[in-house]
Structures are given as structure tokens and as C-alpha cells.
């Protein structure tokens, strides 16, 4: 039972890390290597609104998510749009922005235990004899809701449908009058907001540290590669595969192999099925 409970929590956590990255790539084919930095940015903005400005916690979170979305959109509009379509340049530019943000925080003295966010609900509950805290249960609940809402958003809203259109065939979408740059900006903003949402949900479990930006980027990439770059549902499925594999590894092999699971998953996927579980990017090449 403990494997089931904590495996689910770990999987939803990984899904939250990755879903924003998967969304941006899915819509605009842009590998946003600043994703981890945006996660940290959102944490620090929430902390600042809460502690420096003394705002209400919920209001701080909402404002931080909006601010993170705007930052993401600005990154796209002023930097990434110029290198769009040049994959290596996109990676270098976005990684450089992420690096500048994270190292900027470090340089600015954002370190130590000062930067923490309070849990939404204190306390814990026993489920089938396994003790779980409410914050983690909330992570699972909100994580599931996010996936559901995202599914509905991409099927029943004009912007969501435009995003799907872009994801399927950008040229065809252009011919149908969809402004690809506008949708890409929106996707980047939305993906950044999802990174921010992951941050405000998960950072209350620990404290805000700059290094988290790098770790989350690696995990998000691992999940997306296994799930298939560009596939949101693939990312969710991959999160569950890696999440449970990590927990089983801790139980049966040892905790120090935990990180190896994610990296091994990348290597195995690239060898056996480079397009990932649901990816379409290289399917044709693989067939050829």
C-alpha cells in the first residue's frame, strides 16, 4: 500500500514538473530549457508577495502565477522568437536565460532557509495504515485536476484548439488563419504558469533553493523524452512509469539508485524508441 500511495504522489509530482515543458514543446516545438528557472522564479515571487508585501497567501500565489506567465511570454517574445526553428539555438538561448536567472538569484543572496512557503493544510492522515500529509494529498488532487482541465482546455476552447492545431501541423494551422506566433507566446506563458503551479504546490514540502531549478529541468526532460516529446498525455504516462520505478527502486534496490532511474529511462528510450511512448516527431524516420 505504501508503494501505491507514495508511488502515486511521486508520479504526480513528476507530471507537474514536466507538463509545462511538454506543453510548450508540443505547441511550438520549442525545448524550453528555462523551465526549471521559471519554477524557482515562481517560488521566489510567491515568497516575496507573501513576506515582503504581506499579501494574502492565495492572492500571492495567483499574482505569482500571472507574473511567471508574463515572464515566460516575454522570454519568448523578446528572445526565443528570434531563434525559433533553429533547434540548437533554441536550446542554447533558453538554457542561457535559465542559467542567468538561477545564477542571478544565487548572486543576489537568495540562499538558506529563509525562503520557505507554508503548507496549504497542516497535518497528516493515515490511509490503510500509511501516514500521508495533507499537502501531498493536495498535490495529487490538484495535479489530477490540472491534467483534466488541460484536456478540456485543449478540446473545448478556441485557444486550446488553436494550440492543438499548431501541435499537429503548424503550416496547416497558419493556412486556417491561426497566428502561430501569438499561440506560441500563449503556450509559453501557459507552460511557464504550469511550472509556477508545480512550484507553489511542491515548494511548501521543503524550501526554495536555486539548485531545484536544475534538478527539475532534468526530471522534466526525462519524463518528456520517455513520454514522447510533444505529447502531453505521454508525459503524464511517463511520469507514472518513472515515478513508480523510482519508488520500487528505493524499496528493493536502495535510495541512491533513485536518480539513476530517470537517467536510465532517457538512455533506454533513446536506444529503443527515440520518439518516446507517444511521440510522433521521429516516427517516420524510425520507420525508414
Amino acid at each position: 500500500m505504501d508503494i501505491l500511495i507514495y508511488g502515486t504522489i511521486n508520479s504526480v509530482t513528476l507530471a507537474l514538473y514536466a507538463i509545462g515543458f511538454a506543453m510548450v514543446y508540443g505547441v511550438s516545438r520549442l525545448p524550453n530549457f528555462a523551465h526549471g528557472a521559471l519554477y524557482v522564479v515562481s517560488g521566489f515571487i510567491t515568497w516575496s508577495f507573501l513576506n515582503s508585501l504581506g499579501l494574502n497567501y492565495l492572492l500571492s500565489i495567483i499574482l505569482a502565477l500571472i507574473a511567471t506567465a508574463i515572464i515566460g511570454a516575454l522570454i519568448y517574445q523578446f528572445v526565443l522568437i528570434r531563434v525559433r526553428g533553429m533547434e540548437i539555438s533554441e536550446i542554447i538561448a533558453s538554457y542561457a536565460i535559465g542559467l542567468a536567472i538561477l545564477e542571478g538569484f544565487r548572486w543576489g543572496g537568495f540562499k538558506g532557509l529563509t525562503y520557505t512557503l507554508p503548507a496549504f493544510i497542516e497535518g497528516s492522515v493515515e490511509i490503510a495504515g500509511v501516514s500521508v500529509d495533507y499537502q501531498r494529498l493536495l498535490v495529487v488532487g490538484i495535479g489530477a485536476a490540472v491534467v483534466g482541465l488541460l484536456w478540456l482546455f485543449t478540446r473545448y476552447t478556441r485557444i486550446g484548439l488553436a494550440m492543438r492545431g499548431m501541435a499537429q501541423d503548424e503550416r496547416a494551422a497558419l493556412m486556417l488563419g491561426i497566428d502561430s506566433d501569438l499561440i506560441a507566446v500563449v503556450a509559453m506563458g501557459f507552460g511557464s504558469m504550469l511550472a509556477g503551479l508545480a512550484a507553489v504546490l511542491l515548494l511548501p514540502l521543503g524550501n526554495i533553493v536555486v539548485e531545484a531549478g536544475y534538478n527539475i529541468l532534468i526530471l522534466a526532460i526525462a519524463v518528456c523524452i520517455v513520454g514522447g516529446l510533444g505529447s502531453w498525455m505521454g508525459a503524464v504516462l511517463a511520469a507514472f512509469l518513472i515515478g513508480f520505478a523510482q519508488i520500487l527502486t528505493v524499496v528493493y534496490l536502495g535510495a541512491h539508485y533513485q536518480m539513476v532511474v530517470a537517467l536510465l529511462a532517457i538512455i533506454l528510450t533513446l536506444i529503443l524508441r527515440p520518439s518516446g511512448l507517444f511521440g510522433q516527431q521521429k516516427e517516420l524516420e524510425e520507420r525508414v
Partner: protein
Amino acid sequence: MKFKYFKMLVLLLAVVLMVLPARQVFAAKPIVLGCPLSTAFLYGWAAERGFRLAVDEINAKGGVNVKGEMRPFAVEVIDTRDLEPGVPVSDALLAVEKLILDKKADFILGGPIRSEAALAAMPLLSKYQKVSILTTGVLTPKYHAMVAEQYDKFKYCFRIHGEAKNLVGEMFANFTELKEKYGFNNLFIIAQDVSHARGAAQVMNDVAVKKGWNVTGVEIYPTGATDFSMGLLKAKQTDSQIINIWMDMPESAILLKQWYEMQIPALPFGSTLAAAEQPGFWKATDGKGQYTLCNVVNAGNAPSEATPWTMKFYNAYAKKWGIEPEGLGSSSSYMAVYVLRDAIERAGSLDSDKVIAELEKTDVAGVYGRLRFDPKSHQVIPATDPKEGAVGSILQWQNGKRVVVYPKSIAKGSIQLPPWMKMGK
């Protein structure tokens, strides 16, 4: 007219007399202390603050008397980042070399902080014949063992803070007490996947078995891990009564929060448990740090009255930095500067061999007790009585305060158990 000239002469003389001593101090070439530190981490920034406090105090009193010439200390810090996951040891070595060659450091103080990096830096210090005093991080016993084994090569290397074997001894003194008082016998070990912690976990395991403890499990977590639930559940399922933690990464705060939330009936007893050492731990965990024990390696890193100098340092640090001394590296870094100053003054020179000879003769009542180096291994001599040697400090978080519970000679309280443990026993 003559009187006017006389007045001008007196005025000129007064100005010269006022300016001359100051100019002598500021014109003298500073003694550069090169500090390779992982500054984004507690053990790095705490050490830097310790150095700067001591340097400011010494410089305010005129500096260091080098054969009659008063020379100020200057601090040069380079961020080695060696505590960060994925940063290669070679980066820390480059930082040390840069301090020596570019910054013209006369002495190396502080780190590198990670044991792997400090061990790798030893030949470098030997090559450049630079005297180094480790003051933070590095706990591996191999460091001073290498000095003892190859004295002529590694005689430049000193360590002024406690090392893993001392820490293990101090922890077992407490475990034995808990065994006698509550009948504890099951020990679960959690360590970070880094050299000193893995080594310490192995030593803990071996010593525990020899002392008749039942080691119920050993979990090694990778640096940066953010979920410890399965390890904690293992501890619970195996009826462990103490969880011994060796973890200096900030994510250890998550482990301790999880322990509290899951109400694991085993006392968290850490060493180099960076998160729990810091004064901000209580607020950061919303009080869930209650009952956590950790070894802060030396007295002065938590409030106690080990020596008359302890609280003097403690208060001076708090006044200068707006925060109490935060953990390993604070008091030892502060003392290293004073010990080095004394050695330089006795040697009357910055010459490495002369300073080494004087450092070996060090015998001073410092912030954390009597400070002496073993002349063969250059490790500070430990003790449980501050009159005999360098004393450690084990603290427990009790109602928002860091209460020193060991050694008894400086203790301010005794170990408390969480209510869910008392009920279970």
C-alpha cells in the same frame, strides 16, 4: 611672526603624528587569506562570515605584527561550488589554484568543503607550499591520516574542526545514554551519497554492531533527493528507535518535515545536518523541527558557555551579521584566523615552514575550548572538557530554541522524546 611659524609647525607635526600610524597600517602589504568556499551553502557562507568577523576585529586592533610591521589581513573568497550536485572536483581545484596564483593568497583557509575536493587539493597545497587550515565541511578522517602518513609532503595541511570519528564517538555517547534510559537498541541510518556521509554511515554501522546495536537499515540518498517517505517507512516498519542522519544538502529539511508529518517513532539524530543546524530551521519547518538532534561539530556554533570567549564570539557574530552563528564552520573559521595570526606573530614571518612550526605549537583557549594541533597529523585535538581540548556540540530543537545537550560539561538541557515515541514505549 615666529609664533605664527611655531603654530604652523605644531599643527603640521600633529597632522603627521595623526596620519603616520594609520598610514603605516594601511600602507603595509596585506596578508591575503584565500578562502575556497561553496558560498551558496551553509558551510560556505558561515565560514566566510566567521573569517570576516575575525579579520575585522584583528584589523581594527592594528593587524598582524610581522616582525615589528603591522600588516592587515585581507580576505579573498572564491566560490568553489563543490557542495553542489554535479560540480566536478576539478572546479574546486581550479579555484584553489586561482587563489594562489591570481589572488596571491599567502594562506588558504576554509575549504574546499567537500571531502573529495579537499583530499584532491592536498597535493596542490604541497606543490605551492601553501599553509592551509580547513575550517568547515570536510570530515573525512583520511585527511589527517594522509598528513600523518606523508608528513613531509602534506605538512601544509591543518584542520581546526572536528572530524567524522570524533562525531561518531560523540553520537554513541548519546546513544548509550538513550539505551540506558529508554532501552533503545534499533538504529536506522540515512546518509547522503557523498564521500564523508557514506564513510560515516559505514563507520556508524560497524561501531553500532560492535556495541551491540541492531542496525535495522542503511539508506543512501542522492544529493538533491526531495522525497524520503520510503526510507522513513522502512525505519518505522523495522521498529527503529533512532534515525541517524548524515546529510548536508538543504533538502534535509524535507526529510525532517516528513518525519514529523508521518510521526515516525524514531528520534532523528543527525550530523552535518545542515538544515537543522541553522537558526531559521524552526520557522522554515513551521515548528516541525521539534525534537531534531544534530551535531554542529564545535561549540560556539550553538549557544553555550564552553569558554568565556564562546558567547562573546556568539554575540559579536549575531551583531555583525544579524543572525546567530549558524552551524559548522562559524566558530572554527573565526578561530582559524586568530590561531594563524598568533602563529605568524610568533614566527615573525609568512614563511610556510616557520608558520607550520608555530602552528604545531598552538595552545590557546579559544571559542570552543583549548585549541592544539596534533603535531603529526595536524588535526585539532578533541575533548569533552573545554579545558582539555576542542569540544563539540550536539543540540536539540526544543520549543523553537537550539538547546545544547552534549557534552555534559557545556549542556543547557537534556534530550526530549516526541510524544508519539513515549506513547509507543
